[in-house]
């Protein structure tokens, strides 16, 4: 009996190891080949990059058609501003939705929920035309608001549920002390929302950082994803350079993920589970 159990455990571990290798292999290939010259890549794709070369990285940085700094800047601005704005407006809206029990607030809640099901492709063309009619040019500022609009549904929903689970007494006590609603929210409630905020920030932030379709179709804003997509074109014959681009896109995310792994998992799954 015991021996059988042992055998099963070993079998399980072997299975998991094989699967882990399969999952990691493409990532390993991408990272190790970034530091190899292109000729070696096809002959020995699995070998370690010894001696490593930074030739590929250098040619990416030096390429006249790519501006890595600009891409990182755009992506960072979009991610930070988009996430911050989403958190602010959604948490405030959720405060209203969770604490006011009127028919109107109920309706508003459903109204915000509809957005979760929307296949985003439906709004690209109308958005282009809307911007034209308002004579707003494409650009990072507009895109920030577009990202916020796309994430409000999810974030508001999460915050509303979370605020529901918090006792109202604290807020009432603060109000008796003469605090305004605004103060109550920012000074008392918002700090309590921190776990929820982390979850939302990761979900929204990562979503914006990795988004490809939205910046591509709304004016081809050079974010890291769109930038790499357009830059790889002329170099697609040289895998070393392609891998170097991928390296630039993926490395920040992998590093942050390994540091804040728990938060990532919560952030990306909690949303789905609550929904």
């Amino acid at each position, binding site marked *: 009996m015991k021996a059988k159990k042992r055998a099963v455990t070993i079998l399980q571990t072997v299975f998991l190891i094989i699967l882990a290798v399969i999952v990691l292999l493409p990532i390993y290939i991408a990272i190790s080949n970034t530091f190899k010259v292109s000729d070696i890549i096809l002959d020995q794709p699995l070998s370690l990059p010894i001696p490593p070369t930074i030739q590929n990285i250098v040619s990416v940085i030096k390429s*006249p058609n790519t501006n890595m700094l600009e891409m990182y800047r755009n992506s960072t601005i979009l991610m930070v501003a988009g996430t911050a704005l989403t958190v602010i407006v959604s948490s405030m809206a959720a405060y209203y939705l969770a604490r006011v029990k009127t028919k109107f607030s109920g309706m508003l809640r459903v109204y915000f929920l509809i957005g979760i099901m929307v296949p985003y492709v439906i709004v690209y063309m109308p958005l282009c035309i809307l911007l034209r009619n308002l*004579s707003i040019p494409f650009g990072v500022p507009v895109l920030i608001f577009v990202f916020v609009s796309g994430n409000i549904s999810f974030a508001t929903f999460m915050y509303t549920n979370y605020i529901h689970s918090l006792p109202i007494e604290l807020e009432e006590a603060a109000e008796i002390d003469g605090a305004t609603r605004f103060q109550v929210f920012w000074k008392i409630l918002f700090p309590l929302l921190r776990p929820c905020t982390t979850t939302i920030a990761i979900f929204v932030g990562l979503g914006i950082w990795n988004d490809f379709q939205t910046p591509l179709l709304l*004016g081809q804003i050079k974010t890291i994803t769109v930038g790499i997509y357009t830059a790889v074109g002329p170099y697609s014959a040289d895998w070393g350079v392609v891998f170097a681009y991928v390296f630039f896109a993926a490395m920040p995310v992998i590093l942050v993920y390994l540091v804040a792994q728990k938060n990532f998992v919560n952030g990306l799954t909690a949303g789905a589970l609550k929904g």
Partner: protein
Amino acid sequence: MKKRKALTAIALSAALVASCLAGCGKKTETGSTADSGKTKITFGVFETDNITSEVWQNMIDSFEKDHPDITVEKVLATGDDRQAFWKTMLSSGSFPDVVIEAEQLATMEGIFTEVPQDVQELFDDTTLCQYNGKCITVPSFKQYKMQCYYNKSVFKDLNLEEPQTWDEFMNVCQTIKDAGQTPLMCGGTGDIWATGEPFWIAEGDTALLSKYPDFNKELKEGTNKWNNDTTVDVLTKWQDMVNKGYYYDGAMSLSYSQAAEEFKKGSAAMMVDGSWQAAGLDSESNEDFGVFALPTMDGSKITVADCSYWGVSETCENKDAAFQFIKYVFDENQDVYKTYLQADGLYSTTKKAVTYDQGNVTTKFIDNIADNDTVQEIVKLPGENAAPSGMQSFMDKSFQNIFNGADVKTEVESWDTEYQRLLDAQ
């Protein structure tokens, strides 16, 4: 009291949104007029391996030097589908003032403004064209399309000559195949056009246009169809070539640059490609490759040469400055025009012809077709009888289907359906 707070909050948030919107909105206005009394125009371009950002920068810099009161801002079309990019810009109202590939967009009414007489006069009359009786675009260059590049050493080893007829070409392919090598290279999923378009332009357009010189007109009037014997014949022959294994096995998963790279590495002996390849080979002083005009199937001596067109947007606020820019490039300082042409192996369309020193491959390319009549590619023909935009990419996909074994007749039938559908929609 409470009510006032509510109102304040609403007002604040409205102001937040409004200020953002207004802030962005202002940018266009100040953008197109002046920061310091300067006029600004936007210039929509694309870049390739040959036409790099330096070519445009050179053009813009020298213009700004000679016209200090005007600044030119480059708008770079990115992504793989440039037509889609321009249309997005159009839908969003961010369309550049001057656009360098206007021929397809010009079929939609009201996008480009009429070209003044003095600007029209700079160009060769045969290259000018009209849409609804108005000249709204200027020809920027003429480009000779698809010929067949070949690996000289393979031809030498197998004792092959440049083929003069279609049958000879087939023999060349078969000989290379029999020698255990791959005769032809093309691109695939990475760059959809690179699969069938080069072959179609060299064989299909020439065959159709030698039989029906007014094919575009007939197509538009409904007196002719894509689905005719000539089209089916050309494509069936092409599919046969694929089935005989003349094409590189992995062609369909290559992008254009990968295909060109593989060709240069010797993975296939021949590749049908445009004159830009000749310019590219010359700039590397690469002597390993030769080029011959792909013999037409019916033996007719015609060659496809396309003109490309620039247009000035109807919504441009400084049309004078925009045309000044055009006059500068094509007339006042033809050095920048020359640099542009030379970079991609292009030919001038101006009355004051511009020439430059051609490398060996380019010279050979031109010699090959010196005696031929030139015609415009069917889907790129500008003017009244232009094909609806979207037709090109539809055909490119269809070529891939045919390459992978789809029924030629059914595919060509779908061309007619799509042609009508696209025409209808525009």
